[in-house]
């Protein structure tokens, strides 16, 4: 019953790549208290996708990614503007921005439905199970493997380079943005860079896992890891391990129960989170007796 064939491998491999990209970005989004901005971006990119699609005529064009990227940044700027200039609370700014942009996307889809081969179901849920049959075939007719897998690889390379290059700036601006500005770190450029990476990741993962799973992968693994550690390096490592575990378990559970892989991945992520909450609470209770005394002594 449990098989590990090539298709299973491709799906788990691609899902893990996406989970790693999302997790890496999600750690910094969470530390900046912007986890829900990630949610907003993943929905707000929809009109960008539709416009890119209308311009290029294909779902796979560069225009789609550029369009989504622009809308992602626009959403970030809009949230920021509402919060700082119009003095709307952060959660309300997020709610207003992404629902508005998402609605515009839906209207665009229905208005140009006869030209757009995009359905809202696919945008929301994705279908990673089709991945092995959607191949990247060269002009010479040679198959190079699943197209979405290559997108995910490219995405991970970009995310990894961004985070490696700007690791110290990301860390500083996440902890104390004002101090970063004062010592001359281009904090707003770093912020926009991060938002662009989130937009791009969202788009390139859309077809595979949909907007909802992207948000889950951005938020849940970092939040789970944060229950266990207070060290940035460990936090990142643990997030990646959880992301891969979610992909692996999600695939096999979906296979066993014959259900949606993306849906099962989100469910597994949720279960891991709640189990972690339980375990870490239990752990801190055990520690309580001795730890407290030692702390009082040293401070």
């Amino acid at each position, binding site marked *: 019953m449990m098989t590990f064939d090539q298709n299973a491998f491709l799906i788990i491999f691609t899902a893990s790549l996406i989970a790693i990209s999302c997790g890496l970005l999600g750690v910094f989004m969470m*530390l900046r*208290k912007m986890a829900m901005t990630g949610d907003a971006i993943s929905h707000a990119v929809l009109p960008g996708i539709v416009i890119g699609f209308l311009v290029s005529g294909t779902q796979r064009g560069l225009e789609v990614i550029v369009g989504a990227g622009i809308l992602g940044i626009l959403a970030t700027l809009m949230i920021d503007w509402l919060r700082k200039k119009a003095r709307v609370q952060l959660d309300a700014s997020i709610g207003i921005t992404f629902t508005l942009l998402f609605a515009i996307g839906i209207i665009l889809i229905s208005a140009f439905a006869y030209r757009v081969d995009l359905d809202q179901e696919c945008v929301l849920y994705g279908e990673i199970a089709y991945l092995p049959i959607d191949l990247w075939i060269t002009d010479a007719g040679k198959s190079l493997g699943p197209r979405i897998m290559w997108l995910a690889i490219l995405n991970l390379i970009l995310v990894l380079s961004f985070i490696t*290059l*700007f*690791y*110290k*700036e990301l*860390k*500083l601006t*996440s*902890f*104390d943005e*004002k*101090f*970063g*500005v*004062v*010592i*001359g*770190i281009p904090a707003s450029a770093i912020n926009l860079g991060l938002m662009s990476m989130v937009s791009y990741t969202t788009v390139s993962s859309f077809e595979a896992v949909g907007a909802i799973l992207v948000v889950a992968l951005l938020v849940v693994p970092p939040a789970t890891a*944060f229950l266990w*550690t*207070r*060290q*940035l390096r*460990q*936090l990142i490592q643990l997030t990646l391990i959880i992301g891969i575990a979610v992909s692996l378990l999600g695939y096999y559970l979906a296979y066993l129960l014959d259900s949606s892989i993306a849906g099962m991945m989100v469910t597994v992520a949720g279960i891991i989170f709640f189990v972690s909450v339980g375990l870490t609470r239990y752990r801190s209770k055990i520690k309580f007796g001795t730890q407290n005394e030692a*702390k009082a002594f040293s*401070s």
Partner: protein
Amino acid sequence: MIKQVTQPILEIHDLTVSYDQSPVLWNVDFSLPAGKLIGILGPNGAGKSTLIKAIMGLIEPNSGYVKIFDQDLDKVRNKISYVPQRESVDWNFPASVLDVVLMGTYGKLGLFKRPGKKERELALSCLEKVGMTAYVHRQISELSGGQQQRVFIARALAQEADLYLMDEPFAGVDMNTETAIFNLLQEMSQSGKTVIVVHHDIYSAVNYFDWFIMLNLHLVASGPKNEVVTEELLRKTYGGKLNLLSKVSELIRQKEFNPLKD
């Protein structure tokens, strides 16, 4: 009583700052000498933190300008150091004490470079100065308020600046830490650094600083201690808070505060 100085380290000209149409700082104009320990005094809401933030370029002023070392802020960022209020960050952030102090070296490192051995040694020596050597690898979420403040000051020291601006470094710390921080600030100013501190407690301020800026939306006074710490100017700064003022004059009398002694 506003005493202007020649060759100032910091010069503020006609600075006005407002939030939502209501002015928080009105026509502030003063200049500061180098190598002094300078206190910014004023009641709550007088614009003390706003003044610091305007100097650091974190708030856009409506009018006026700030010159540091006779230059624009952007040209001298490497020479200025900033200690924000302790509550301005989330101490649950996953970082160790050493990580945070190392952040002080990032400005000089520039983009792409990671802190190396040299920066590590600098950070450790700064931690030694604030008496936090025992806590180098401690997670910052496990620190007490006073320890957090020391870490912030160590981070500022790691910038190796000439001008330090500190926003309420004595807020919510115990006597022990307050004295330790004050001694350190004094050492710094004796070695030629200029230290500007926002402070709310007049009683200790009189003992700590040798130059005062008194603020209450308007600039009330800027000058050396013996010229500006007078009942009249304090009354102007703190307005109608009579209870407080009678305490102040009592304090001045009790301590037989003699300006000529200093």
